[in-house]
């Protein structure tokens, strides 16, 4: 390299640097938060919950309370949002308000504000998710996890009539579907591990919680273990589906969105998923009718797993805590916001006197009816893996359940080995 070209290069490099620095100087930065009532709010983005959805929701609140200045933060991945909140706590950037983040762990460490009875008076289930007798997360909505959505066209083609209610009926339907060349169950996984463990969550919730609602509380007291026969049986039931070829083990690395798309494309007959799928079912293109039934139980008894919570948590150390609380409650109780959350994310708002808008889609309506009926018959139990309080898994264990489900699907481990693994991870997590 001659010195002339060298000089030319350096001049070029300097010019590039200067230009980029100048560009950077005049380009748009994130809007800063100024003023006395500034708060930070951690959201997450999914295909249903877009940046525009959050911006509009925040604006509805700040239009009513113009003194609150909200800086929206976004978790880098939806599924990892609770883990990300831990990371922010660890690095000293814990937000003032967080939505959809599990309070377990944060609450015990004294990081969260405990909602008072007066704060909770408008909520249908003010005592959902107790942690050490207090309530840290607004019980904003209910999700049934998982009902089974199904492709009516594929059911008909395989000669499956009626919706399965018992486990045997489900297996019979799956067998017919498989014989007709259809993959009976659609599952996913990859970075969205919950898409692997949906069926397992359904089995544990209906089988175990149907009789012993407090099974996980007992696990916390070490009175039961994952290696106990009742849990191993549930694991076996799940592993069995994979062994019989009702689940395609090649799909455990498929992310959530692709999984949903696969069902909508007719690549499988039954899709056990949280009822938020109804929003996609009613809005996204597909060329068949979608039905929904409750997750079948062993003997056909009505047991409907659901999780109520999912709302805002507020940092105990928020600089403007009253503003943070005001924002959280206003956000959560705003009628327009509730309607939007129904339409965009298929949620069942758990607010006293709230009725979903009349123009919701048929899949949402069908799922909502199933849930209302379960409430009337007092058949609702916790949704295993999704609990966020003292009656749930230890912090960090949900990921292990997902991994365990994947191991069962791929046949890498059998039920007994998975149970041992879960007990070992439980010990580490506690």
């Amino acid at each position, binding site marked *: 390299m001659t010195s002339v070209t*060298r000089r030319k290069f350096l001049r070029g490099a300097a010019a590039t*640097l200067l230009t*980029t620095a100048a560009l*950077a100087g005049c380009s748009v930065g994130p809007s800063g938060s100024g003023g006395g009532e500034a708060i*930070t709010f951690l959201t997450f983005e999914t295909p249903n919950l877009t940046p525009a959805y959050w911006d509009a929701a925040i604006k509805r609140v700040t239009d009513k309370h113009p003194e609150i200045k909200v800086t929206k933060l976004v978790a*880098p991945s*939806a599924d990892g949002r609770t883990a990300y909140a831990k990371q922010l706590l660890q*690095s000293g*950037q814990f937000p003032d308000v967080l939505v959809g983040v599990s309070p377990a762990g944060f609450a015990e460490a004294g990081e969260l504000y405990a909602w008072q009875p007066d704060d909770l008076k408008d909520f249908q289930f003010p005592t959902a998710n107790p942690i050490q007798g207090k309530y840290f997360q607004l019980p904003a909505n209910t999700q049934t996890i998982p009902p089974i959505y199904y492709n009516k066209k594929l059911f008909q083609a395989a000669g499956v009539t009626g919706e399965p209610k018992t486990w045997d009926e489900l297996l019979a339907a799956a067998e017919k579907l498989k014989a007709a060349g259809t993959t009976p169950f659609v599952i996913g996984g990859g970075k969205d591990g919950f898409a692997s463990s949906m069926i397992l969550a359904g089995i544990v919730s209906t089988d175990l919680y149907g009789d012993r609602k407090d099974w996980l509380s007992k696990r916390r007291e070490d009175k039961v273990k994952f290696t106990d026969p009742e849990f191993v049986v549930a694991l076996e039931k799940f592993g069995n589906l994979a062994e019989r070829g009702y689940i395609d083990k090649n799909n455990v690395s498929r992310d959530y969105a692709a999984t949903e798309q696969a069902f909508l494309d007719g690549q499988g007959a039954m899709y056990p998923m949280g009822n938020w799928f109804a929003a996609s079912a009613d809005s996204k293109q597909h060329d068949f009718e979608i039905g929904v039934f409750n997750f079948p139980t062993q003997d056909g008894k009505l047991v409907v797993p659901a999780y109520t919570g999912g709302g805002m948590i507020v940092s105990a150390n928020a600089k403007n805590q009253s503003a943070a609380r005001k924002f959280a409650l206003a956000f959560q109780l705003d009628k327009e916001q509730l309607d939007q959350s129904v339409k965009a994310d298929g949620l069942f708002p758990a607010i006293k006197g709230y009725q979903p808008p009349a123009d919701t889609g048929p899949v949402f309506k069908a799922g909502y009816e199933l849930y209302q009926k379960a409430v009337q018959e007092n058949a609702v139990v916790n949704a295993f893996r999704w609990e966020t309080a003292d009656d749930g898994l230890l912090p960090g264990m949900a990921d292990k359940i997902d991994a365990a489900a994947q191991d069962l699907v791929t046949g890498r481990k059998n039920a007994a080995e998975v149970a041992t693994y879960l007990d070992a991870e439980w010990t580490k997590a506690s």
Partner: protein
Amino acid sequence: MTERLPWLRPIVALVLSALFFVPLYLVPANVFKPGDQISASPASPPWPPTLDNITAVLSRPDNLFWVSLANSVIVTAVSVVVLTVLSAMLGHYLARSRSPWATALTLVLLAGLMIPPQVILIPVTEVLKATELMATVPGLVLFNVGYYVPFGVFVFTGFIRGIPIELEEAAFLDGARRTQVFWRVVFPLLRPASASVLIFLGVWIWNDFINPLVILGPGRGTTVTTGVYRSIGQYQTDFGSVFALMFLATLPVLVFYLALQKHFVKGLTGGATKG
């Protein structure tokens, strides 16, 4: 030397690079294809091409791309300039010093070349918290400087040892001060080494993922790399937008590379042949 089959080599080379290039081809093929065709035919050529994906990303209401670009440009530019200056001076000091302390210091610094960022990331957040630099651009820049200074020192000391000391001594004889000698006599001679440091650290810092993800936090917005990561979640099935964002995020560094290709290779091989 002659080859028996002179036509064989270019053909093998062409076939191999074509195979090698397939994954890269996916990017333009999907960026300029309408989003709804991507999952059905990911590998088909984008015909007729569309700019919809690019405009969709550029006109996002939250300015994700522009905020990310601004952050990446500031962090990369400032880090790289500071790193070049600091490590050139430090490299000169170590290369010219004969004391055992300097040798020991060189070893300690070079050991830094092999430290995985994961080992120090959690305590680094503690250091930044203590200095109130957590979640700020200066905090990330300072971390970059500390973490990458060993690479700069590695390149510069090697290079400086190859420059005769007499040049500097002659300047001292003329009564010049040490800093003057360094800036007027030595630094201009270090251009090839400075070029490698600028280029390599520029590319690394631009592409960095976990450090900006943790240190910059969510408040300041993302860098282009963490922006791509975040957009995977939101777009999920909308691969047109993900690919468009990846394309735009890579474009600056690709242009940088194509313009300075020769120096990239020089920088690499300078290190390779001198060890």
